[in-house]
Protein backbone atom coordinates (compact mmCIF):
# COMPACT_ATOMS: atom_id res chain seq x y z
CA UNK A 1 0.00 0.00 0.00
CA UNK A 2 2.89 2.33 0.64
CA UNK A 3 3.86 1.42 -2.88
CA UNK A 4 2.23 3.00 -5.94
CA UNK A 5 0.28 0.66 -8.20
CA UNK A 6 2.38 -0.71 -10.99
CA UNK A 7 1.61 0.46 -14.51
CA UNK A 8 -0.36 -2.59 -15.46
CA UNK A 9 -4.02 -3.24 -16.08
CA UNK A 10 -6.51 -1.30 -18.13
CA UNK A 11 -7.95 2.13 -17.88
CA UNK A 12 -11.32 2.80 -16.28
CA UNK A 13 -14.10 2.26 -18.82
CA UNK A 14 -16.03 5.21 -17.41
CA UNK A 15 -13.49 8.03 -17.18
CA UNK A 16 -10.82 6.57 -19.44
CA UNK A 17 -8.20 8.35 -17.37
CA UNK A 18 -7.36 6.42 -14.25
CA UNK A 19 -6.38 2.80 -13.94
CA UNK A 20 -9.25 0.41 -13.20
CA UNK A 21 -9.35 -0.85 -9.61
CA UNK A 22 -12.16 -3.37 -9.73
CA UNK A 23 -14.55 -5.28 -11.92
CA UNK A 24 -18.19 -4.60 -11.11
CA UNK A 25 -20.11 -7.86 -10.67
CA UNK A 26 -23.34 -6.21 -11.80
CA UNK A 27 -22.12 -4.86 -15.13
CA UNK A 28 -18.64 -6.42 -15.57
CA UNK A 29 -17.31 -2.89 -16.14
CA UNK A 30 -13.72 -2.25 -15.12
CA UNK A 31 -13.63 1.00 -13.22
CA UNK A 32 -11.32 3.15 -11.13
CA UNK A 33 -11.81 3.95 -7.44
CA UNK A 34 -13.27 7.42 -7.92
CA UNK A 35 -15.77 6.26 -10.55
CA UNK A 36 -16.64 3.32 -8.31
CA UNK A 37 -17.46 5.60 -5.36
CA UNK A 38 -19.62 7.71 -7.67
CA UNK A 39 -21.62 4.86 -9.26
CA UNK A 40 -21.93 2.96 -5.97
CA UNK A 41 -23.37 5.95 -4.12
CA UNK A 42 -25.44 7.09 -7.05
CA UNK A 43 -27.11 3.72 -7.53
CA UNK A 44 -28.14 3.67 -3.88
CA UNK A 45 -29.46 7.21 -4.20
CA UNK A 46 -31.51 6.12 -7.26
CA UNK A 47 -32.93 3.15 -5.36
CA UNK A 48 -33.93 5.47 -2.49
CA UNK A 49 -35.55 8.01 -4.83
CA UNK A 50 -37.23 5.58 -7.23
CA UNK A 51 -38.77 3.57 -4.40
CA UNK A 52 -39.63 6.67 -2.34
CA UNK A 53 -38.06 5.11 0.71
CA UNK A 54 -38.04 8.34 2.75
CA UNK A 55 -39.94 11.60 3.16
CA UNK A 56 -38.30 14.87 4.24
CA UNK A 57 -38.35 15.35 8.00
CA UNK A 58 -38.51 11.65 8.84
CA UNK A 59 -36.56 10.15 11.72
CA UNK A 60 -34.70 7.07 10.55
CA UNK A 61 -32.95 4.39 12.61
CA UNK A 62 -30.08 2.53 10.98
CA UNK A 63 -29.83 -1.02 12.34
CA UNK A 64 -26.12 -1.13 13.20
CA UNK A 65 -24.24 -4.29 14.11
CA UNK A 66 -20.73 -2.98 13.56
CA UNK A 67 -20.37 -5.35 10.60
CA UNK A 68 -19.49 -4.38 7.04
CA UNK A 69 -23.01 -3.88 5.66
CA UNK A 70 -24.40 -1.69 8.41
CA UNK A 71 -21.16 0.28 8.71
CA UNK A 72 -21.19 1.09 4.99
CA UNK A 73 -24.93 1.80 5.22
CA UNK A 74 -24.43 4.31 8.06
CA UNK A 75 -21.63 6.00 6.13
CA UNK A 76 -23.49 6.16 2.80
CA UNK A 77 -26.81 7.20 4.37
CA UNK A 78 -25.27 10.14 6.20
CA UNK A 79 -23.33 11.10 3.07
CA UNK A 80 -26.41 10.97 0.78
CA UNK A 81 -28.60 12.71 3.36
CA UNK A 82 -26.14 15.62 3.33
CA UNK A 83 -25.43 15.64 -0.39
CA UNK A 84 -29.02 15.36 -1.63
CA UNK A 85 -30.77 17.16 1.25
CA UNK A 86 -33.05 14.27 2.17
CA UNK A 87 -33.84 16.18 5.37
CA UNK A 88 -33.65 13.02 7.50
CA UNK A 89 -32.76 12.71 11.17
CA UNK A 90 -30.51 9.65 11.33
CA UNK A 91 -29.83 7.45 14.35
CA UNK A 92 -27.82 4.29 14.95
CA UNK A 93 -29.71 1.48 16.66
CA UNK A 94 -27.83 -1.53 18.01
CA UNK A 95 -28.95 -4.66 19.77
CA UNK A 96 -26.82 -6.12 22.54
CA UNK A 97 -27.64 -9.81 22.56
CA UNK A 98 -25.29 -10.41 25.48
CA UNK A 99 -22.68 -12.53 23.69
CA UNK A 100 -19.31 -12.15 25.37
CA UNK A 101 -16.37 -11.96 22.98
CA UNK A 102 -18.60 -11.13 20.04
CA UNK A 103 -21.22 -8.48 20.55
CA UNK A 104 -19.31 -6.59 23.22
CA UNK A 105 -16.47 -6.16 20.70
CA UNK A 106 -18.69 -5.25 17.77
CA UNK A 107 -20.55 -2.70 19.92
CA UNK A 108 -17.23 -0.95 20.43
CA UNK A 109 -17.10 -0.56 16.64
CA UNK A 110 -20.60 0.94 16.61
CA UNK A 111 -19.57 3.36 19.37
CA UNK A 112 -16.66 4.50 17.22
CA UNK A 113 -19.05 4.88 14.26
CA UNK A 114 -21.23 7.10 16.44
CA UNK A 115 -18.36 9.55 16.76
CA UNK A 116 -16.98 9.09 13.23
CA UNK A 117 -20.33 9.77 11.51
CA UNK A 118 -21.84 12.02 14.19
CA UNK A 119 -24.98 9.88 14.49
CA UNK A 120 -26.61 9.41 17.92
CA UNK A 121 -26.55 5.78 19.07
CA UNK A 122 -29.16 3.82 21.03
CA UNK A 123 -28.35 0.34 22.32
CA UNK A 124 -31.13 -2.00 23.48
CA UNK A 125 -30.16 -5.22 25.22
CA UNK A 126 -31.75 -8.64 25.53
CA UNK A 127 -31.07 -8.58 29.25
CA UNK A 128 -33.08 -5.38 29.80
CA UNK A 129 -35.89 -6.33 27.36
CA UNK A 130 -36.23 -10.02 28.15
CA UNK A 131 -34.26 -10.65 31.34
CA UNK A 132 -31.99 -13.11 29.51
CA UNK A 133 -28.68 -12.71 27.67
CA UNK A 134 -27.77 -15.05 24.80
CA UNK A 135 -24.90 -16.36 26.95
CA UNK A 136 -27.45 -17.43 29.58
CA UNK A 137 -29.83 -18.87 26.97
CA UNK A 138 -27.07 -20.94 25.38
CA UNK A 139 -26.01 -22.16 28.80
CA UNK A 140 -29.55 -23.46 29.28
CA UNK A 141 -30.44 -24.79 25.81
CA UNK A 142 -27.07 -25.53 24.21
CA UNK A 143 -26.09 -24.76 20.64
CA UNK A 144 -29.20 -26.15 19.00
CA UNK A 145 -31.99 -23.71 18.14
CA UNK A 146 -30.18 -20.83 19.82
CA UNK A 147 -30.32 -18.89 16.55
CA UNK A 148 -34.12 -19.13 16.66
CA UNK A 149 -34.20 -17.38 20.04
CA UNK A 150 -31.70 -14.80 18.91
CA UNK A 151 -33.53 -14.08 15.63
CA UNK A 152 -36.98 -13.71 17.19
CA UNK A 153 -35.64 -11.57 20.02
CA UNK A 154 -33.58 -9.36 17.71
CA UNK A 155 -36.49 -8.62 15.43
CA UNK A 156 -38.58 -7.42 18.33
CA UNK A 157 -35.66 -5.63 19.97
CA UNK A 158 -35.13 -3.55 16.82
CA UNK A 159 -38.81 -2.60 16.80
CA UNK A 160 -38.74 -1.67 20.49
CA UNK A 161 -35.54 0.33 20.04
CA UNK A 162 -37.14 2.10 17.08
CA UNK A 163 -40.17 2.96 19.23
CA UNK A 164 -37.91 4.34 21.96
CA UNK A 165 -36.12 6.51 19.40
CA UNK A 166 -39.52 7.56 18.00
CA UNK A 167 -38.35 6.91 14.46
CA UNK A 168 -40.59 6.59 11.41
CA UNK A 169 -38.59 3.84 9.74
CA UNK A 170 -35.80 1.38 10.28
CA UNK A 171 -33.21 0.75 7.56
CA UNK A 172 -31.12 -2.41 7.52
CA UNK A 173 -27.96 -3.35 5.65
CA UNK A 174 -29.32 -6.42 3.87
CA UNK A 175 -27.52 -6.60 0.53
CA UNK A 176 -28.36 -8.23 -2.82
CA UNK A 177 -26.51 -11.44 -1.91
CA UNK A 178 -28.45 -11.71 1.38
CA UNK A 179 -31.76 -11.23 -0.36
CA UNK A 180 -31.03 -13.75 -3.13
CA UNK A 181 -29.99 -16.20 -0.45
CA UNK A 182 -33.21 -15.64 1.49
CA UNK A 183 -35.38 -16.04 -1.62
CA UNK A 184 -33.70 -19.41 -2.21
CA UNK A 185 -34.04 -20.48 1.43
CA UNK A 186 -37.72 -19.61 1.53
CA UNK A 187 -38.32 -21.62 -1.65
CA UNK A 188 -36.45 -24.57 -0.15
CA UNK A 189 -38.42 -24.33 3.09
CA UNK A 190 -41.71 -23.80 1.27
CA UNK A 191 -42.26 -20.71 3.40
CA UNK A 192 -44.83 -18.96 1.23
CA UNK A 193 -45.54 -16.12 3.67
CA UNK A 194 -41.89 -15.11 3.90
CA UNK A 195 -41.18 -15.72 0.23
CA UNK A 196 -43.74 -13.16 -0.80
CA UNK A 197 -42.23 -10.43 1.35
CA UNK A 198 -38.52 -11.20 1.58
CA UNK A 199 -37.75 -9.54 -1.75
CA UNK A 200 -39.74 -6.38 -1.01
CA UNK A 201 -37.67 -3.29 -0.47
CA UNK A 202 -40.09 -2.04 2.19
CA UNK A 203 -41.83 -4.35 4.65
CA UNK A 204 -44.10 -3.84 7.62
CA UNK A 205 -45.84 -0.79 6.24
CA UNK A 206 -48.98 -1.90 8.01
CA UNK A 207 -47.08 -2.30 11.28
CA UNK A 208 -45.74 0.29 13.69
CA UNK A 209 -42.31 0.65 12.14
CA UNK A 210 -41.74 -0.04 8.44
CA UNK A 211 -38.34 -1.46 7.49
CA UNK A 212 -36.46 -0.86 4.30
CA UNK A 213 -33.36 -2.10 2.58
CA UNK A 214 -31.49 0.53 0.55
CA UNK A 215 -28.80 -2.08 -0.35
CA UNK A 216 -31.34 -4.42 -1.93
CA UNK A 217 -29.55 -4.23 -5.30
CA UNK A 218 -26.04 -3.67 -3.93
CA UNK A 219 -23.59 -6.54 -4.29
CA UNK A 220 -21.71 -7.73 -1.23
CA UNK A 221 -18.47 -7.58 -3.19
CA UNK A 222 -18.95 -3.87 -3.83
CA UNK A 223 -19.87 -3.17 -0.20
CA UNK A 224 -16.67 -4.86 0.98
CA UNK A 225 -14.57 -3.14 -1.71
CA UNK A 226 -16.08 0.20 -0.75
CA UNK A 227 -15.33 -0.37 2.93
CA UNK A 228 -11.79 -1.46 2.07
CA UNK A 229 -10.96 1.45 -0.25
CA UNK A 230 -12.53 4.00 2.11
CA UNK A 231 -10.87 2.32 5.11
CA UNK A 232 -14.14 2.20 7.02
CA UNK A 233 -13.91 0.77 10.50
CA UNK A 234 -15.93 -2.44 10.74
CA UNK A 235 -15.96 -5.62 12.78
CA UNK A 236 -15.77 -9.01 11.13
CA UNK A 237 -15.89 -11.94 13.47
CA UNK A 238 -18.44 -14.65 13.13
CA UNK A 239 -20.90 -15.07 15.97
CA UNK A 240 -19.44 -17.64 18.36
CA UNK A 241 -22.82 -19.38 18.69
CA UNK A 242 -23.85 -19.50 15.06
CA UNK A 243 -23.51 -22.90 13.40
CA UNK A 244 -25.54 -21.40 10.57
CA UNK A 245 -25.56 -24.63 8.61
CA UNK A 246 -28.61 -24.32 6.41
CA UNK A 247 -28.11 -20.68 5.48
CA UNK A 248 -24.45 -21.48 4.98
CA UNK A 249 -25.27 -23.91 2.16
CA UNK A 250 -27.50 -21.37 0.43
CA UNK A 251 -24.80 -18.73 0.82
CA UNK A 252 -22.15 -20.95 -0.68
CA UNK A 253 -24.42 -21.85 -3.59
CA UNK A 254 -25.08 -18.15 -4.30
CA UNK A 255 -21.35 -17.41 -4.22
CA UNK A 256 -20.66 -20.31 -6.63
CA UNK A 257 -23.37 -19.00 -8.98
CA UNK A 258 -21.92 -15.50 -8.76
CA UNK A 259 -18.53 -16.73 -9.87
CA UNK A 260 -20.05 -18.28 -13.00
CA UNK A 261 -22.51 -15.50 -13.76
CA UNK A 262 -22.66 -12.52 -11.40
CA UNK A 263 -26.05 -11.38 -12.75
CA UNK A 264 -27.59 -14.54 -11.25
CA UNK A 265 -27.95 -12.70 -7.92
CA UNK A 266 -30.15 -9.99 -9.44
CA UNK A 267 -32.10 -12.62 -11.38
CA UNK A 268 -32.95 -14.52 -8.20
CA UNK A 269 -34.09 -11.30 -6.51
CA UNK A 270 -36.25 -10.64 -9.57
CA UNK A 271 -37.77 -14.12 -9.30
CA UNK A 272 -38.58 -13.39 -5.66
CA UNK A 273 -40.24 -10.10 -6.61
CA UNK A 274 -42.30 -11.75 -9.31
CA UNK A 275 -43.55 -14.54 -7.12
CA UNK A 276 -47.34 -14.41 -6.92
CA UNK A 277 -49.16 -16.30 -4.23
CA UNK A 278 -52.46 -17.76 -5.39
CA UNK A 279 -55.37 -16.02 -3.72
CA UNK A 280 -56.70 -19.33 -2.43
CA UNK A 281 -53.61 -19.78 -0.26
CA UNK A 282 -54.54 -19.01 3.30
CA UNK A 283 -52.21 -16.43 4.77
CA UNK A 284 -51.90 -15.87 8.51
CA UNK A 285 -53.90 -12.94 9.82
CA UNK A 286 -52.06 -10.20 11.66
CA UNK A 287 -53.17 -9.35 15.19
CA UNK A 288 -51.52 -8.42 18.46
CA UNK A 289 -49.91 -10.53 21.14
CA UNK A 290 -52.23 -10.75 24.13
CA UNK A 291 -49.31 -10.62 26.48
CA UNK A 292 -47.00 -7.87 25.24
CA UNK A 293 -49.01 -6.20 22.48
CA UNK A 294 -46.43 -6.85 19.77
CA UNK A 295 -47.77 -7.70 16.29
CA UNK A 296 -48.51 -11.40 16.02
CA UNK A 297 -50.63 -13.75 13.95
CA UNK A 298 -51.08 -15.94 17.03
CA UNK A 299 -52.48 -15.39 20.48
CA UNK A 300 -48.98 -14.87 21.82
CA UNK A 301 -46.08 -13.55 19.76
CA UNK A 302 -43.20 -15.90 19.23
CA UNK A 303 -40.90 -13.99 21.58
CA UNK A 304 -43.43 -14.44 24.41
CA UNK A 305 -43.77 -18.16 23.67
CA UNK A 306 -39.99 -18.59 23.70
CA UNK A 307 -39.65 -16.47 26.84
CA UNK A 308 -42.35 -18.45 28.61
CA UNK A 309 -40.40 -21.62 27.78
CA UNK A 310 -37.17 -20.16 29.16
CA UNK A 311 -38.79 -18.88 32.34
CA UNK A 312 -40.62 -22.16 33.01
CA UNK A 313 -37.52 -24.21 32.32
CA UNK A 314 -39.06 -25.72 29.15
CA UNK A 315 -36.89 -24.05 26.55
CA UNK A 316 -38.15 -26.23 23.73
CA UNK A 317 -41.54 -24.54 23.76
CA UNK A 318 -42.10 -22.98 20.41
CA UNK A 319 -39.19 -24.68 18.70
CA UNK A 320 -39.68 -26.56 15.48
CA UNK A 321 -41.64 -29.72 14.87
CA UNK A 322 -40.62 -31.89 17.77
CA UNK A 323 -41.84 -35.44 17.68
CA UNK A 324 -40.16 -36.40 20.93
CA UNK A 325 -41.28 -36.19 24.53
CA UNK A 326 -42.05 -32.54 24.23
CA UNK A 327 -44.72 -33.32 21.74
CA UNK A 328 -47.42 -33.45 24.32
CA UNK A 329 -46.41 -30.20 25.91
CA UNK A 330 -46.24 -28.58 22.52
CA UNK A 331 -49.71 -29.79 21.71
CA UNK A 332 -51.01 -28.30 24.94
CA UNK A 333 -49.20 -25.11 24.23
CA UNK A 334 -50.57 -25.03 20.72
CA UNK A 335 -54.08 -25.33 21.99
CA UNK A 336 -53.52 -22.70 24.60
CA UNK A 337 -52.08 -20.55 21.90
CA UNK A 338 -54.25 -21.38 19.00
CA UNK A 339 -50.97 -21.74 17.17
CA UNK A 340 -49.90 -24.04 14.42
CA UNK A 341 -46.42 -25.31 14.36
CA UNK A 342 -44.00 -22.48 14.94
CA UNK A 343 -41.20 -23.05 12.50
CA UNK A 344 -37.67 -22.86 13.66
CA UNK A 345 -35.45 -20.70 11.56
CA UNK A 346 -31.71 -20.91 11.47
CA UNK A 347 -29.68 -17.87 12.29
CA UNK A 348 -31.91 -14.88 12.66
CA UNK A 349 -29.23 -12.31 12.07
CA UNK A 350 -30.77 -11.96 8.64
CA UNK A 351 -34.40 -11.82 9.60
CA UNK A 352 -36.69 -10.33 7.01
Amino acid at each position, binding site marked *: *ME*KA*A*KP*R*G*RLCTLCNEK*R*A*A*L*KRPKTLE*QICRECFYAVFEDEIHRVIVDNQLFKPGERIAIGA*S*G*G*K*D*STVLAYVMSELNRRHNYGLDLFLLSVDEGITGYRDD*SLETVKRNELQYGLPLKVVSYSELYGWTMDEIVKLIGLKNNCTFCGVFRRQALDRGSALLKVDKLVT*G*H*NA*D*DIAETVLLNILRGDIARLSRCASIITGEDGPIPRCKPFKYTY*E*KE*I*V*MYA*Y*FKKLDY*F*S*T*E*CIYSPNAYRGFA*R*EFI*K*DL*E*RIRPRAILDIIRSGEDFRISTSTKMPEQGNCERCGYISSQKWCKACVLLEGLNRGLPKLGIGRSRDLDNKRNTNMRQANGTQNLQSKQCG*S*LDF
Partner: protein
Amino acid sequence: MQLTLEFGGGLELLCDSVKIHNINVDPQDGEKQMTMKNLLTWVRTNLIKERPEMFMKGDSVRPGVLVLVNDTDWELSGQLETVLEEKDNVVFISTLHGG
Protein backbone atom coordinates in the same frame (compact mmCIF):
# COMPACT_ATOMS: atom_id res chain seq x y z
CA MET B 1 10.87 -12.57 -3.47
CA GLN B 2 9.46 -10.34 -0.74
CA LEU B 3 5.70 -9.91 -0.56
CA THR B 4 3.31 -8.33 1.90
CA LEU B 5 0.14 -10.29 2.53
CA GLU B 6 -2.85 -8.90 4.36
CA PHE B 7 -5.81 -10.90 5.66
CA GLY B 8 -9.09 -9.23 6.55
CA GLY B 9 -12.82 -9.65 7.01
CA GLY B 10 -12.24 -12.49 9.47
CA LEU B 11 -9.66 -14.46 7.43
CA GLU B 12 -6.95 -13.34 9.86
CA LEU B 13 -8.54 -15.74 12.36
CA LEU B 14 -7.28 -18.61 10.21
CA CYS B 15 -3.69 -17.48 10.63
CA ASP B 16 -3.25 -16.87 14.35
CA SER B 17 -5.18 -13.57 14.15
CA VAL B 18 -2.22 -11.89 12.47
CA LYS B 19 -3.42 -9.54 9.74
CA ILE B 20 -0.19 -8.55 8.02
CA HIS B 21 2.52 -11.01 7.01
CA ASN B 22 5.78 -10.03 5.39
CA ILE B 23 6.93 -13.12 3.59
CA ASN B 24 9.80 -14.39 1.53
CA VAL B 25 8.83 -16.84 -1.15
CA ASP B 26 10.40 -18.12 -4.33
CA PRO B 27 9.03 -19.80 -7.44
CA GLN B 28 9.08 -23.58 -7.28
CA ASP B 29 11.87 -25.34 -9.20
CA GLY B 30 11.41 -25.21 -12.91
CA GLU B 31 9.18 -22.14 -12.77
CA LYS B 32 10.53 -18.73 -13.57
CA GLN B 33 7.62 -16.70 -12.31
CA MET B 34 5.63 -16.53 -9.15
CA THR B 35 1.92 -16.58 -9.89
CA MET B 36 -1.05 -16.14 -7.59
CA LYS B 37 -1.68 -19.84 -8.06
CA ASN B 38 1.75 -20.65 -6.57
CA LEU B 39 1.22 -18.12 -3.82
CA LEU B 40 -2.11 -19.64 -2.77
CA THR B 41 -0.51 -23.07 -2.43
CA TRP B 42 2.28 -21.52 -0.36
CA VAL B 43 -0.18 -19.63 1.87
CA ARG B 44 -2.26 -22.71 2.46
CA THR B 45 0.79 -24.71 3.50
CA ASN B 46 2.61 -22.06 5.48
CA LEU B 47 0.17 -19.52 6.89
CA ILE B 48 -3.27 -21.07 7.28
CA LYS B 49 -3.39 -22.74 10.68
CA GLU B 50 -7.01 -23.86 10.78
CA ARG B 51 -10.11 -24.45 8.63
CA PRO B 52 -8.37 -24.13 5.24
CA GLU B 53 -11.77 -24.69 3.59
CA MET B 54 -12.73 -21.18 4.73
CA PHE B 55 -9.92 -19.84 2.56
CA MET B 56 -9.67 -22.13 -0.44
CA LYS B 57 -11.92 -24.23 -2.61
CA GLY B 58 -10.21 -26.36 -5.25
CA ASP B 59 -7.05 -24.57 -6.36
CA SER B 60 -8.48 -21.06 -5.93
CA VAL B 61 -9.84 -18.97 -3.08
CA ARG B 62 -13.27 -19.84 -1.83
CA PRO B 63 -15.98 -17.88 -3.64
CA GLY B 64 -16.74 -14.85 -1.48
CA VAL B 65 -13.08 -14.16 -0.71
CA LEU B 66 -11.93 -10.98 -2.45
CA VAL B 67 -8.34 -10.69 -3.63
CA LEU B 68 -6.51 -7.46 -4.41
CA VAL B 69 -3.01 -7.27 -5.85
CA ASN B 70 -1.49 -3.84 -5.18
CA ASP B 71 -4.97 -2.60 -4.30
CA THR B 72 -6.45 -3.76 -7.60
CA ASP B 73 -9.13 -6.45 -7.89
CA TRP B 74 -7.37 -9.62 -9.10
CA GLU B 75 -10.22 -10.15 -11.55
CA LEU B 76 -8.51 -7.43 -13.58
CA SER B 77 -5.08 -9.03 -13.55
CA GLY B 78 -5.92 -12.61 -14.47
CA GLN B 79 -6.82 -14.10 -11.07
CA LEU B 80 -4.73 -17.29 -10.58
CA GLU B 81 -2.51 -16.39 -13.53
CA THR B 82 -1.55 -12.99 -12.08
CA VAL B 83 2.25 -12.76 -12.06
CA LEU B 84 3.66 -11.35 -8.85
CA GLU B 85 6.67 -9.09 -8.60
CA GLU B 86 9.08 -8.11 -5.88
CA LYS B 87 7.42 -6.15 -3.01
CA ASP B 88 3.90 -6.71 -4.29
CA ASN B 89 1.08 -6.32 -1.82
CA VAL B 90 -1.66 -8.98 -1.80
CA VAL B 91 -4.87 -8.55 0.22
CA PHE B 92 -7.41 -11.27 0.98
CA ILE B 93 -10.78 -10.20 2.42
CA SER B 94 -13.62 -12.50 3.32
CA THR B 95 -17.09 -11.18 2.56
CA LEU B 96 -18.66 -14.07 4.40
CA HIS B 97 -18.53 -12.87 8.00
CA GLY B 98 -21.28 -10.92 9.71
CA GLY B 99 -23.33 -8.05 8.43
